[in-house]
């Protein structure tokens, strides 16, 4: 297990008082806090080495390029990709998915083709596919979910046709915290010769990810949700696809030769990294992943699971509470409503008690529609949260109930 007191000291924001006491930060699914080492790394690179990467002949440029490519190596190892050039830096999960929707779409999707997504996707894994399908005259098919938030895998099998070109599901759903059986989904899809994109925005920081073992074709995630900086993300893609697809963004660095008549694209990974990358962001993300590795990701996941059991048990005692996503396969996210109290009212009151939660539809309207509600209160925890915070949170919920009674 982890030394929670030591870990909390690594995160300066957790020491911040909001109104009366240090914040109870339960909004980790929206974005995570950064350990001091990540902030220091960003600082250091701006103060000592900042310089544009690649093709620079000077010392600073070489230093920054090395650090940038080293970050790629760290990520490659963390997700166990086969090659470093299968790790593409993007600005976040949303851009990673847009990249695949565009580039895969341009290459492989024709009129009447079909894309399979699930009922419980984040808008970032719905709208890019919709837009591409609209452009191409293709269709979206939806894997249904069961009431407890699990996907209906039996139904998936029936969705395939010879027009199915790609399957796109999240590793963990953001509004409910449900862990999807992605191994199985990938297996089934591959048995139909259909590649799979995993939206790992909520997966990478709470679950082991081995892209080689998973055999997924694409895996997308955001730096800011895994204790790294904003504005940086990753797309892992199998070499084969990355080689075959046309680029998404274009511009500097992603080409070999340009004339006004014709342009020859650069090798991987640069083909997909047009323009000046967020190199300081990438270096910061590398530092974040190193930080996780130092603690040991299994230690983190074990501790988070303990928190999940504790909070689930505790919160179930609050009278009138209703949890959305009751499956056992979940990360430490509690999406809920208290009877007769609007999620907004709950959120505002918790804020006044120095508890940060998210309220609303969580960029996940189809999920809300599925439950016939407008939104929920979502408490999403991370390994720097504590049992004591959970106790205080549950007490506060009881107080909210009293206030609105």
């Amino acid at each position, binding site marked *: 297990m982890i030394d929670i007191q030591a870990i909390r000291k690594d995160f300066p924001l957790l020491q911040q008082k909001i*109104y009366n006491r240090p914040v109870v930060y339960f909004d980790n699914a929206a974005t995570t806090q950064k350990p001091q080492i990540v902030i220091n790394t960003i600082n250091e690179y701006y103060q000592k080495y900042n310089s544009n990467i690649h093709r620079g002949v000077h010392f600073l440029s070489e230093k920054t390029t090395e650090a940038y490519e080293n970050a790629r190596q760290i990520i490659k190892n963390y997700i166990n990709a086969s090659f470093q050039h299968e790790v593409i830096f993007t600005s976040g999960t949303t851009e990673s998915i847009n990249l695949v929707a565009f580039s895969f779409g341009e290459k492989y999707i024709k009129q009447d083709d079909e894309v399979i997504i699930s009922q419980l996707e984040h808008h970032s894994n719905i709208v890019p596919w919709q837009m591409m399908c609209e452009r191409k005259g293709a269709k979206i098919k939806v894997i249904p979910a069961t009431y407890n938030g699990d996907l209906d895998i039996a139904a998936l099998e029936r969705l395939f046709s010879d027009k199915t070109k790609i399957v796109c599901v999240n590793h963990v759903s953001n509004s409910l915290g449900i862990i999807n059986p992605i191994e199985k989904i990938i297996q089934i899809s591959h048995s139909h010769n259909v590649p799979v994109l995993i939206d790992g925005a909520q997966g990478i920081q709470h679950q082991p990810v081995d892209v080689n073992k998973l055999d997924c074709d694409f895996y997308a995630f955001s730096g800011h949700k895994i204790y790294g900086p904003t504005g940086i993300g990753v797309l892992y893609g199998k070499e084969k696809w990355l080689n075959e697809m046309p680029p998404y963004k274009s511009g500097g660095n992603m080409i070999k030769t340009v004339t006004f008549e014709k342009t020859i694209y650069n090798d991987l990974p640069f083909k997909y990294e047009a323009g000046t990358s967020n190199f300081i962001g990438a270096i910061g993300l590398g530092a974040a992943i190193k930080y996780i590795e130092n603690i040991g990701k299994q230690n983190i996941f074990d501790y988070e699971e303990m928190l999940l059991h504790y909070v689930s048990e505790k919160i179930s005692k609050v009278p009138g509470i209703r949890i959305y996503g009751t499956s056992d396969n979940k990360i430490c996210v509690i999406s809920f409503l208290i009877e007769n109290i609007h999620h*907004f*009212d709950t959120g*505002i009151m918790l804020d*006044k008690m120095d508890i940060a939660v998210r309220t609303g539809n969580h960029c996940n309207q189809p999920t809300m529609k599925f439950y016939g509600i407008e*939104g929920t209160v979502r408490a999403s925890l991370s390994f720097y949260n504590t049992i004591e915070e959970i106790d205080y949170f549950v007490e506060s919920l009881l107080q909210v109930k009293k*206030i*609105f009674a």
Partner: protein
Amino acid sequence: MTIDQIQEQIVEEFSVFTDWMEKYTYLIELSKELQGFKEEFRINQNLIKGCQSQVWLQVEFKNGKIIFYADSDTVLTKGMIALLIRVLSNRTPEEIVNAKLWFVDKIGLTTHLSPTRSNGLISMIKQIKLYAIAYKTKYNI
């Protein structure tokens, strides 16, 4: 009383509260007292959809004055609506157009009018101001 006088009155009322809890308890009280929104007006046409909560707004023009009724699905927004009605309803278009709402800030509830919250209140006020401008132009007053 003028709009500013009412605002001063509200600020004074709130000045007795020593912490946020008392303020919010009072807002909740106000929300319970908020009456007058007829069921028949709870229609899509009157709906202002915020990202966090919804507001319904119904406006009447009577004797040169704008009267409005509003409701919300959240209690705290409803409490705020009660205050806004006290300040802005039953006023001439001229008064509404020129009104500056400074009381929200003074009583420490700015967050409820923050554009980042998207609870429908800002859109509601905008909508009321637009009505005022429209009536002012229409009746040339």
